Each structure stands twice: as C-alpha cells, then as structure tokens.
C-alpha cells in the first residue's frame, strides 16, 4: 500500500512538473560509466547482425538502404509526435519500433531504432550518447523483437491484421518500458536491492505507460490496416504477407 501511495505521489509530481510527458528514454548521464559501456556491449551483436542483414538485402535491392533510412526518419517523427494519454491528462510519445519490427524485421529495425535514437540524442536531448546502448536495447532490440514476435505469433494463430497489429504495438511498447525500467533500476540502485527498486520504477510509470501502450497498439493496427488497404504490395515486398494473402 505504501509503495502504491508513493508511486502515485511521484506520478502526481511528474504530472505537475511537465504537461508533456516524453517517451521514456534513459536520459544522458543517468547511468554510471560501467553500465553505459555494458549496455553498449550487449547491443553490439544485435547491431552487427542488423548490419549483416542490411548488407545482404541491399545487394539484391539497391533501394533497400534508402528505404531503411526513410523508415528511421518515420520512426523518429512518430516518436516525436504527441498523442493524448487520457488517464494522465497529458500527451506522450509512442516508440514506433513495433511497426518497423513488423515491416523490416527485428534485426534491421534495431538499426532503425539506433539511428532514430542518435538523432534524438543530438538534436532533442531525448536519451543520450552515454545511454545510447541502453536505449537501443530497450527501444531498438526489445521493442522490435517484441513487436515482430507478437505479430508473427498472432498471425500464426490466425488473428486478422487489425488484432495482430494492435497486439504487436501494445507488447512492443510495454516491453520497451519494462526493459527501460530494469536498466534504470540497475543503473541507479547504488547499494539498494535491484528488484524492489525495479518494481517501484515500473509502478511509477504505469499510469502513463499502460494507456500509452494501448494507444500505440491502436496506432500500429491503424498503420497496418491502412497499408493493407492502400498498398498491399508493400506488405508483400516486406514479407509481412504472402502474395496469396493479398488480392492485388
């Protein structure tokens, strides 16, 4: 009860401080040096695999690199756009890596997330260079893989595009924020135990991030359905759907 009360107190502080809650990237300077380096080393294999895939796919299709770059620009713009969070009475920002995970695959989507995060760190001070690795892990790796795996699983279970897109956006968002809370707790815990602090951080952000995940799910579903209606050829090209699933 005490923790719930404290968490609510923190949330009300946070809402009184800002009217526009930003996507929860870990800010520059929060993580101590060893954690900053450790998270960067963790994401390196994912980035290397993404670059390998990029090289392989762009050999056959010269337009693939520009497409990945433009998708990074789309993810950047989406994650800068405010959407209203009714329970918090504020605006927040979606992550956008769920949709790029669905369209480009999780490995390339990790690169997309890394590019968007680097530009955000330099131009908007959202995230940072020292927390780049940690943010790539949560938004790029976890968000992309969660979105991709959820979408594929839902499709395998015969869910339609709307439901599969919604669930992918929802879980990509929630997984991103859960992993961000874990990284934050590990980085700032000092001498405290990890699990209690992780629980408190998670609790403090639930009033904003719980509805935001639902909103991101709705947005992802809307995007996938629009692509299916307007440009089903793109979904086939990006191997989201098989040609027989689309009546072109």
């Amino acid at each position, binding site marked *: 009860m005490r923790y719930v009360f404290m968490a609510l107190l923190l949330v009300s*502080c*946070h809402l009184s401080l800002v009217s526009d809650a930003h996507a929860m990237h*870990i800010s520059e*300077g929060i993580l101590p040096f060893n954690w900053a380096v450790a998270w960067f080393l963790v994401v390196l294999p994912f980035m290397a695999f993404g670059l390998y895939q990029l090289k392989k796919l762009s050999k056959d299709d010269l337009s693939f690199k520009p497409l990945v*770059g433009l998708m990074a*620009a789309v993810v950047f713009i989406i994650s800068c756009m405010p959407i209203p969070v009714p329970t918090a009475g504020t605006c927040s920002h979606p992550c956008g890596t769920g949709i790029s995970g669905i369209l480009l695959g999780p490995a390339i989507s990790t690169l997309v997330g890394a590019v968007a995060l680097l530009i955000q760190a330099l*131009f*908007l001070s959202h995230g*940072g260079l020292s927390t780049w690795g940690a943010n790539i892990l949560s938004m790029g790796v976890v968000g992309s893989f969660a979105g991709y795996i959820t979408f594929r699983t839902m499709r395998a279970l015969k869910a339609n595009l709307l439901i599969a897109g919604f669930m992918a956006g929802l879980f990509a968002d929630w997984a991103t924020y859960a992993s961000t809370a874990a990284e934050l707790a590990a980085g700032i815990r000092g001498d405290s135990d990890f699990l209690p602090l992780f629980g408190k951080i998670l609790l403090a952000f639930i009033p904003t991030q719980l509805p935001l995940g639902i909103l991101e799910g709705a947005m992802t579903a809307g995007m996938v359905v629009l692509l299916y209606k307007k440009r089903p050829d*793109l979904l086939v090209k990006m191997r989201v759907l098989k040609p027989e699933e689309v009546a072109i």
Partner: protein
Amino acid sequence: MHVLTEHSRIDHALARIDARVKILSALVILAMILSYRGFAFPGLVTLICLILTFGMGVRLRVLLLRYSEPLFIAAVIIAVKLLFAGKDPMFSAQFMGIAINGYRDGFLEGLQIANRIVSAVSLIALLGFSTPFAEFIAGLSWFRVPKGFVEILMFAYRYIFVLFDDAQVIYQAQKNRLGYSTLRRGLSSFGTLAGSLTIKAFDHSQSTTVAMMQRGYDGTMPMLKHKPFRLHEVAMTMVLLICLGVLWKI
C-alpha cells in the same frame, strides 16, 4: 520540429573546430563525468558548457526545451532516491495514515545523479549546437563506424525534414476535417497519418534510388573528405583535456 533545426552560429570559433576533435573530446569528458563521484567536476563542466552555448548565441527558450525532458527525469530520480533509498532519516511525515520517510543519503545520491544528468546534457547539447550534422556524420565515418550505419543515418537525417513537411500537411488536413475531435477519431487519424508516412517513405526511397542510380549510385555513398588535423586545435584540446583530467582526479 523547429527544435530540430540547427541553432548553431557556423561563424563561431567552436563551430569551426574539426568535428572529429569535438566528438573525441566530448566522449572523453562524458566518460569523466560518468565516472566522477561528487558534485564539483560535473558542476564545472555544466558552467563551462552553458557559457559557451550562450556565447554561440543559442536562445534561452531553445535551451530550456532541450533541458525539459532531462530535468523531468532528474526530478523523478531525486524523488525516487529520497523516498526509497538510504538509511539515514531526513524527515518523516504522515499523510492519510501512511508514513512517508525521506532519507538524507538517498537524497544526496539523487542530487549527484541529477547533477551528472545536467552536466552530460549540457555537454552533448553544446556538441550538437556547434557541429553541423553532415560534419558529425563524416566524423563518425572517420572513427570507422560501419558504413551501412552511417549511410542510413545520412538518409534518415536528409528525409526527416521532407517527411515532417508531409506529416504536417496530412495532419492539418485531418484537423480541418475534425480528425482529432474525439479520442477514437484521433487515434484512427494518427494511425492513418503514420501509415501514410510509411507509404510516402517507401515512394521517396524508390524515387531517390532511381535518381541516385542515374548519377552512378552502386549501393555505397561517398563521404565527406576530411582535411588534415590542425595542429593548434589538437594542441588546445589536449591542454583542455589534461586540465579537466587533473580537476577530475582532485
């Protein structure tokens, strides 16, 4: 998006320094900030960065916008550390029958992290204000950042502004048609907006590839050629880093 536009004065002395020197110095100072235990060094870096940033003619409003998210996160961390971490009691209060305890050591630890955040953000903001993005990208390629990554970074940066203009046109059209009048319609409109941007991104990528192929594109992009390092810049940077290193050690 106006926040995105570069606010640096390219005629300023700091903007003329080689991007590679600035990137390397920023990373070294960042490492010093992150590994420092205390208030003095990050505070000093913040002060120097703010003086240089204002010296470059960056407006206060732009700077405040930059600091809004990091300051919010710093405030949350101070509160979390004050209320949940530490052993040395600072205050105790009752609210609606629930005991709230604050801890002095937790508060100090929170302040230390907040100080680190402000200092690191000031440093990277200064780097962003003083380095045109094209030079930053060229600097990354000199540091042997994989070419594939640098290329998609270039494409992304070039097309952010194009796609943002597209997004604004679609958003305005949706708004004029009451697309954001209710939450349900707002969500639907936002999904359509994001989907339309994806379609436009795909179309732009096709037309860009065709245009580049006509100019000899074979799958790799040429990078900016670097001039040789200027000795006085390297020497001054070394002196600055040594001075900061000594202060960091003290």
